[in-house]
């Protein structure tokens, strides 16, 4: 606690950082921030980072800054540390006061800020520094990335739906009058008024809201395929044209209500798909977005930041803890642990010393090292993975969807029947007008909601059901593809296993204060330390973090520290040996020892554990007749152990990222529809080349963005559930399709024969839709074993 006299008041601060911020605000005349805060508690500002100069580099500017015509610069930032509206106010205020800043708006909901400034008056680094100086942090993001684009499509769909709903709701009550008139008798003049009103309401719905279907039909036409959009567009358009004809000639009934209903229902279905739609190309933005654009090189003992494109082979590069490697090389000075999980999937850090190879994509964990570049940026591993990914995404197989195929044939057949009917009636009666009406009525009665709704309705229920069970299907069609699959490929680490070591056995040799161990493992970010930390947290309620002194982390060995004269040592067996402590080291798992004053007090056995229910889930998936294969980057022995434990007989070990993808391709060639589940960057290529990719909720961002299905709870049981759900949904789709085809077999001949009076049409249309909707709702009754 720091106390200070200021204008006759005694002020209390928790730390120097908060004191600094207070004075800064006071000097700027922004003291009333603290009043606006209310009861919100703030965290002390974090220490300043020394990477400000990178914001003014050319490479950075090229990527994130947009230059306006009048010379102003614009950037989109994400501001970290905003927890209340006062924070938004403060940030905006401070930026506004900064000379040269023309505009600064911050969105409280997503913490995104748009800043426009005059580059002649202020530098970007100054802006970032200002934000940091008041205790927040800002980093740029590229607004061209998927999220922004997704938000835009979502908005456009939402607006179209609003129009469609408005139109159909109003047409509904007009239609009520219409039908009442049909049964009770109505004068032609009133009928005309209703017709015109319905016409006015239906027009924007068809052409604004239904634009998506016309566009889809047009693309289909260009690719020479007849798709669902063709059916909806042609059905709605012909019903609309027919109704205009009926309205103008005052003959027959109008069908404006069914025009809007078709558009509205199918549009809502599509919207729900769009809500979570993925954009494959954005994956690449993502990979490239997460890599640094500059590295620190050392030439004749002068450090300088250089754009990665300018690094040549032989340059010495400095790597600080926490930085990601972008250029392959060989270590020349120092030693450090590297996280290679993005390449191998294994969370255990790899210890590297002089002469060892450093791979791009790995992250330096604990100390500053120098290494010599052996490749340039474009041929480094990370870049080649990105290229491979690009290839496999564009080559991603697409299973033809049943509903699309059927509706394709169906549309063609109906169009031919309609033409024949028209020709037949014209030939038989010689009455052009009557022949035309009957011809169009065939299309109108055939197109309708039932077939259009068959797939969307069932998928909708299927998707919402799975979302409730923490399974996200990104597109409705994936349900169908998954239902057809008979092969499941699994990654090991992170998918079947937890992906991080956890404590198997704990052996306390002498009673000791657990807070000491807690404080010690808290100083290290090594997975083993974290495993012990989580064990301590779950076993002991009240843990205190002591202030340790002389903390020393020894690479790949352990941690040393002292507390009130006590010497604390924690680490592996060789670390204990070097401290002169004798330990037993018989175990096939990772061991961690803890000693106080060179006396061994505890021994922990850690291992990557298999997820709960994994065995049960695999058994049930196998029972469904699905072949299960395990692909892993880990070595043979541990692959076999895990495979045996959960009952997988087919497994392939020691696979590099691209080899996994090759395996998937082999399976494709054998005629399989492959579902692949994985979580790491090392799985991404394989995920991208499989038919259905399933990612774990907290897996790598890249893995999630190439995947089609995301399991939020990461449980293997969700794999089984998603299989069940997709199969059930597909079954409902098939039932719906069969029903609507049956309906057409009865209704179309009636229409061809000229018996379609408005009563039959209205009744059969709504009835058939109701049946389809009702049948789809039955998916909700699907029961899983675990539920009571």
């Amino acid at each position, binding site marked *: 606690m720091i106390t200070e006299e200021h204008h006759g008041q005694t002020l209390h601060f928790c730390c120097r950082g908060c004191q600094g911020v207070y004075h800064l605000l006071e000097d700027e005349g922004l003291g009333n921030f603290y009043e606006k805060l209310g009861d919100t508690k703030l965290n002390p500002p974090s220490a300043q980072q020394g990477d400000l100069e990178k914001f003014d580099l050319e490479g950075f500017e090229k990527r994130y800054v947009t230059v306006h015509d009048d010379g102003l610069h614009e950037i989109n930032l994400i501001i970290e540390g905003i927890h209340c*509206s006062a924070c938004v106010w403060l940030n905006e205020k401070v930026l*506004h006061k900064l000379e040269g800043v023309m505009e600064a708006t911050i*969105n*409280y909901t997503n913490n995104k800020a748009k800043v426009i400034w*005059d580059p002649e008056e202020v530098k970007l680094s100054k802006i970032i520094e200002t934000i940091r100086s008041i205790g927040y942090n800002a980093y740029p993001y590229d607004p061209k990335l998927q999220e922004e684009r997704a938000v835009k499509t979502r*908005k456009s769909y939402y607006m179209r739906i609003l129009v469609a709903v408005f139109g159909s709701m109003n047409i509904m009550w007009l239609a009520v009058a219409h039908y009442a008139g049909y049964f009770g008798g109505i004068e032609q003049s*009133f009928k005309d*008024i209703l017709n015109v009103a319905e016409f006015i309401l239906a027009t924007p719905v068809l052409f604004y809201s239904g634009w998506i279907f016309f566009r889809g039909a047009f693309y289909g036409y260009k690719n020479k395929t007849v798709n669902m959009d063709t059916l909806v567009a042609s059905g709605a358009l012909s019903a609309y044209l027919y109704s205009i004809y009926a309205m103008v000639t005052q003959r027959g009934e109008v069908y404006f209500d069914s025009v809007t209903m078709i558009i509205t229902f199918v549009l809502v279905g599509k919207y729900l798909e769009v809500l979570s739609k993925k954009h494959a190309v954005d994956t690449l933005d993502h990979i490239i977005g997460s890599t640094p654009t500059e590295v620190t090189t050392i030439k004749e003992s002068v450090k300088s930041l250089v754009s990665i494109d300018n690094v040549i082979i032989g340059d010495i590069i400095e790597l600080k803890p926490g930085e990601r490697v972008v250029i392959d090389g060989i270590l020349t000075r120092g030693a450090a642990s590297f996280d290679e999980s993005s390449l191998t999937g294994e969370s255990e850090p790899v210890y590297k010393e002089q002469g060892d190879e450093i791979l791009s994509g790995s992250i330096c964990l604990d100390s500053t090292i120098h290494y010599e570049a052996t490749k340039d940026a474009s041929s480094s591993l990370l870049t080649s993975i990105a290229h491979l990914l690009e290839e496999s995404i564009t080559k991603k197989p697409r299973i033809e969807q049943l509903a699309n195929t059927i509706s394709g044939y169906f549309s063609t057949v109906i169009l031919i029947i309609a033409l024949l009917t028209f020709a037949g009636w014209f030939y038989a009666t010689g009455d052009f007008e009557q022949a035309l009406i009957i011809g169009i009525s065939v299309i109108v009665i055939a197109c309708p909601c039932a077939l259009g709704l068959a797939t969307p309705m069932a998928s909708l229920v299927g998707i919402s059901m799975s979302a409730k069970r923490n399974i996200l299907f990104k597109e409705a069609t994936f349900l169908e593809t998954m239902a057809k699959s008979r092969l499941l490929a699994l990654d090991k680490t992170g998918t079947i296993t937890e992906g991080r070591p956890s404590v198997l056995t704990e052996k306390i040799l002498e009673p000791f204060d657990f807070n000491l161990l807690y404080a010690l493992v808290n100083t290290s970010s090594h997975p083993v330390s974290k495993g012990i930390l989580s064990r301590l947290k779950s076993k002991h309620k009240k843990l205190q973090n002591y202030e340790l002194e002389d903390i020393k982390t020894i690479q790949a060995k352990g941690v040393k520290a002292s507390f009130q004269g006590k010497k604390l040592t924690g680490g592996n067996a060789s670390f204990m040996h070097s401290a002169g402590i004798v330990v037993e080291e018989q175990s096939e798992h990772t061991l961690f020892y803890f000693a106080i004053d060179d006396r061994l007090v505890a021994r922990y056995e850690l291992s990557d554990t298999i997820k709960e229910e994994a065995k049960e889930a695999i058994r049930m998936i196998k029972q469904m007749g699905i072949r299960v294969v395990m692909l892993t980057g880990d070595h043979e022995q541990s692959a076999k152990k895990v495979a045996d434990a959960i009952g997988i007989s087919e497994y392939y070990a020691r696979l590099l990222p691209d080899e996994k993808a090759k395996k998937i391709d082999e399976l494709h060639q054998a005629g399989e529809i492959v579902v692949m589940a994985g979580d790491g960057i090392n799985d991404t290529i394989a995920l991208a080349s499989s038919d259905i990719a399933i990612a774990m909720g907290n897996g790598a961002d890249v893995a999630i963005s190439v995947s089609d299905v995301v399991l939020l709870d990461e449980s293997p049981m969700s794999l089984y559930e998603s299989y069940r759900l997709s199969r059930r949904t597909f079954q409902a789709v098939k039932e719906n399709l069969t029903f609507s085809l049956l309906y057409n077999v009865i209704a179309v001949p009636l229409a061809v024969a000229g018996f379609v009076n408005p009563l039959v049409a209205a009744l059969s249309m709504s009835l058939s839709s109701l049946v389809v909707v009702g049948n789809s709702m039955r998916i909700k009754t699907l029961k899983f074993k675990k539920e009571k």
Partner: protein
Amino acid sequence: MSEGIVIVMIGVSTLLGALGLIGLLWGIKTGQFDDQSKFIDGARFDGEDALRDAVMMEEKKRKRQEKKKKDEKAYGPPD
């Protein structure tokens, strides 16, 4: 009931509804619903201070434009 009354009834009600719809669409299009809390915060922090802030920003923009004009004049050919 004459046709005229029906026309007026349908017309007026549809028009009113459409006005509401257009208002909503305009709001979405201009991003007024992007930040749920902006409205409330706007009301909470509204005051002389916010006004002064807005004036200050306008002043900044105006100054820049003036400066730009001057610069252009300085480099341009003499009148």
